[in-house]
């Protein structure tokens, strides 16, 4: 594959990471804790879409290689993720009277419950959506880009969702309130914002985007009960890179981490080509920059960013 090919893959993977990281960042800034159940919220979205799609089928026509039924399933998946998150918030998080560390630990328990329930119902094996896999788009293959129409659909849908969120945050009443709350919750409350309601909408939006990310991840790869949890640390890396609590930072961080993740094979080609001396160092670098360590590279970047700029690229409160 060429550089362009890797970049195209990176763009698709980044779209998924961005969808996941926005929600995590939103919840981090408004509910004020690191939500470890976020990855499994993605899994919920994916599996709900799987069931829905299996039940309603294709529904005739198709857009970008995806039958209409898939988009219905996508919406149902988003809704299910949002509903589950709101119910969890109401039943579990809200009655708790503990600090953000306690909430963090609780969210791990919730992540396990989500994942266990999915695993009990669907088993731990990999499944996929019942959609015919497509061949790469012919006209792009000469450039070394091997993306399918499905990949294009993922990117387009992610762009639509992200632009929609941007409009919501900048031009609507709810968006202004959310930004005010992320900035200073106490000030927001005394200025008459119903913070509880805003918080609820934050959960709906964050979990909904996560659900969408989960559905696309299932389309991009496969579905498995661990899919979301496996991606969680990459998403954390993206959020931290962008600056925790900043939605636009999360977008940028998600884009970068997704790109770096998919560009790993390219980096390893580069390392192989470079005249590194002595030989053991070259071998070490080659083995470290291999595809098996794509996720590990993301974590190391995350730690490095935390050390140099604990507030991330976008810094604190830039929402």
């Amino acid at each position, binding site marked *: 594959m060429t550089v362009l090919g890797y970049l195209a893959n990176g763009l698709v993977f980044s779209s998924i990471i961005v969808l996941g990281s926005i929600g995590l960042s939103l919840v981090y800034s408004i509910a004020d804790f690191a939500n470890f159940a976020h990855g499994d919220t993605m899994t919920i979205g994916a599996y709900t879409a799987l069931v829905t799609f299996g039940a309603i089928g294709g529904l005739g026509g198709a857009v970008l290689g995806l039958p209409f039924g898939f988009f219905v399933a996508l919406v149902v998946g988003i809704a299910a993720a949002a509903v589950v998150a709101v119910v969890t918030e109401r039943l*579990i998080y809200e009655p708790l009277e503990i600090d953000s*560390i306690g909430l963090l630990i609780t969210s*791990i*328990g919730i992540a*396990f419950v989500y994942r266990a329930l999915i695993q009990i119902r669907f088993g*731990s094996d990999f499944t996929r959506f019942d959609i015919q896999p497509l061949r790469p788009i012919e006209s792009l293959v000469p450039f070394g880009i091997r993306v399918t129409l499905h990949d294009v659909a993922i990117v387009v849908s992610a762009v639509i969702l992200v632009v929609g969120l941007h409009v919501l945050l900048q031009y609507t009443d709810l968006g202004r309130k959310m930004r005010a709350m992320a900035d200073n919750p106490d000030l927001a409350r005394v200025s008459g914002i119903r913070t509880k309601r805003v918080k609820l909408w934050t959960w709906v939006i964050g979990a909904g985007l996560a659900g969408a990310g989960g559905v696309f991840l299932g389309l991009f790869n496969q579905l498995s009960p661990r899919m979301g949890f496996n991606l969680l*640390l990459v998403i954390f890396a993206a959020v931290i890179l962008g600056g925790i609590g900043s939605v636009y930072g999360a977008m940028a961080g998600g884009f970068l981490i997704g790109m770096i993740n998919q560009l790993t094979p390219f980096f390893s080609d580069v390392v192989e080509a470079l005249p590194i001396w002595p030989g053991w160092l070259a071998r070490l670098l080659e083995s470290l920059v291999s595809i098996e*360590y794509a996720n*590990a590279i993301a974590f190391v970047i995350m730690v490095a960013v935390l050390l140099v700029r604990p507030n991330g690229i976008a810094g604190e409160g830039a929402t």
Partner: protein
Amino acid sequence: MSRLDDAKAAVTDLSRPERWVLTVSVGFALFLLAALLTGGLGPTYFLFLVGLAGMYALLSFGLNAQWGYTGLINFSVAAFFGIGAYGSALMTADGSPIAGGLSPLVGLAVALFVALLLALLIGIPTLRLRADYLAIASLGLAEVVRLVVLNERWLTNGSAGVRGIPGFFAGWPVLSTFPEAMPGLRLEVVPGSPVFLETAFWQASLNVLLVLAFAGATYFVLRRAHRSPWGRVLRTIRSDEDLARALGKNTYSFKMQSFVLGSLIMALAGVFYTHLNLYVGPGDLDPITTFYAWVAVILGGSGSNRGALFGGIVIVAIREGTRFLNDVALPVDPAPLRLLLIGVVIIAVMRYRPQGVLPPQRELIWPSAVDGGGRPERPDSGVRERKGGGDGE
């Protein structure tokens, strides 16, 4: 010790949850004893469970030294456990891709040394971070360790794992031949269901002896450390790090010491596991091990070593109990059931008893002021105490 002299007073001195835990524990022990005597529970398997409980207790002691004492959120328990297990396995196993065939004592030393290096490697960059960042970063670094173990086949044998590990006492003068030398016994307590004690049983009892030695030593070191001035600094850091810094303490250095201490104990649990299970694989570094340890600590009560012990037993009950549940009642795969139980326990504890079932009592008070033997050290000028707060003496 007055407590030993007067067991009744000791019982009345217990808090309500302590009494509750004591009752349940005694009941559970009686149940196990009955199962043992009637042959429902194989004695070898029972000792295996005891060993496993001891191992989880060790893991939670280690985590307790980090989270309970100092408030460090370490989500890389599995990495240290795995390093301990692999360190010892790679030194001692016949099937080891490197060295191999060495004495388990060498394995123990190497495992602890590698764990120390890893603790410094993870601790140096992450211990300066805010609490929740530390959680995320340590989970990420543990994942890196797992990926390395999974992929560096030349070092760790990759996904196949390491086999051919000897027992811990292999090569020791008397203990190495002890299980074979012991005669088989046949006990018949309940008529018709005899209980056999064979070589495997004696082997298992050696393992229990080992874990008791490890856990006992750890317990006393930790208790000593917790009561020392050093332990007091740690507790101050946990409740208010800025205060500790204002008092002129180098909090980073104290946190690092606590992190290293805890990590070494986790590696010790890994070493024991290696020689109990006789096989290690990359699956042992799965994050679920980390969360088992966390459940044990938060359930038992952060900062409390008794609680950690109790938590370890509960974890084994969950881990092995789901297996039975699966055999007897529900046709469900035990893995998700276990996950579900762990999740529910975490949520329930945080919801109803965030301080844990057996939280440390009076831990911020000078110990000699409350312990039974501390009477002479009481200040003589406690007039108020003698007049108003007298306890009927």
